[in-house]
């Protein structure tokens, strides 16, 4: 997990909540960057409150824990980090299971990217299933390929708000989308 993370990830005081408020602000910013960086590099869409990738097996290690220097962030400080992540819109809390989506791009940026794909690949005005969009061959190489489907829904909702998409639901679950 420590691969490609900034050097400060190996600095022991990073793991203790610093008493000086100015410093703590910068420390929280560093943690937000680390989490985003990690999620982006590993293409992890969703992380548990404890810092492990949500969808993988149980052996994945928490980003808040560094075995090389034997340090880990205390749960009270982890809460503060998530608070900062939400506040700066780098994470989105998932109500159903208290995990977090990590937004290395903002929702607006993602929906813009998706819209762009619809436009450039000539998929306007036709129904595209969520599965095609996320897992289909045609989005291979797109940054949003493989995105968590719940997160994808949130992006498509943004497009609907802008009047650019209509969603097809089955039993309250989004199955497909038509972009105009």
């Amino acid at each position: 997990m420590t691969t490609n993370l900034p050097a400060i990830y190996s600095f022991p005081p990073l793991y203790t909540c610093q008493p000086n408020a100015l410093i703590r602000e910068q420390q929280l910013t560093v943690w937000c960057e680390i989490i985003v960086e990690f999620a982006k590099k590993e293409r992890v869409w969703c992380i548990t409150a404890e810092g492990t990738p949500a969808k993988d097996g149980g052996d994945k290690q928490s980003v808040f824990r560094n075995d090389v220097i034997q340090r880990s962030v205390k749960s009270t400080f982890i809460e503060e980090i998530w608070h900062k992540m939400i506040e700066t819109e780098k994470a989105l809390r998932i109500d159903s299971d208290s995990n977090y989506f990590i937004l290395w791009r903002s929702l607006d940026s993602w929906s813009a990217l998706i819209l762009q794909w619809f436009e450039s690949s000539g998929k306007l005005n036709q129904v595209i299933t969520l599965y095609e969009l996320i897992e289909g061959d045609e989005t291979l190489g797109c940054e949003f390929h493989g995105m968590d489907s719940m997160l994808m829904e949130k992006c498509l909702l943004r497009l609907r708000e802008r009047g650019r998409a209509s969603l097809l639901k089955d039993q309250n679950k989004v199955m497909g989308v038509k972009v105009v």
Partner: protein
Amino acid sequence: KTATKSPFLVVDREKFLNKSLFIDEIAREVYDFIMSEFKEQKEREGVILITLVDVYALYNKSMRIGTGLVSPQELREACEKFEKLGLRDLTLKKLNNRVLCVSSGDSFDFIKGKILKIVSAVPGADLLQLTQKLNSSSSNAWTVGIIMEVLQNCVNEGNLLIDEQISGIHYYVNCDWKIN
């Protein structure tokens, strides 16, 4: 040891016509006591810094057995008179906005610099190591009371970062984060 080396100097309240004269005399005695007790430190480090509470205990225990102790109020008033009596090497200063100390020169900056130097040479040093290193040339030049206050100041001001482990608090110099 100190008790025997002091002469039978009787600064007895009852011998003085008024309180003010008594306080003046105590001021001189306390001043001489500190200057001689911390002579070695003054010669080696160039400065003296000790909390008023520790002065109270040391002075009474070494100098006042048999002559009646001075009260906390009397000691404070005596130290406040140093300047007026022309006792210029020591002044009363407040550390961290709360702890009164008897100090010579810019003792606070001096010991702060000394601590920062030790910590940058030994990243992760704890209170025990710091105390040992600070007092390596003599047994108790810098009291723990002073060292803890200065450390607290360094942490509050952001000069030092803490790494809180179950083994204790370890200190690191702050190189990464801006503090103003």
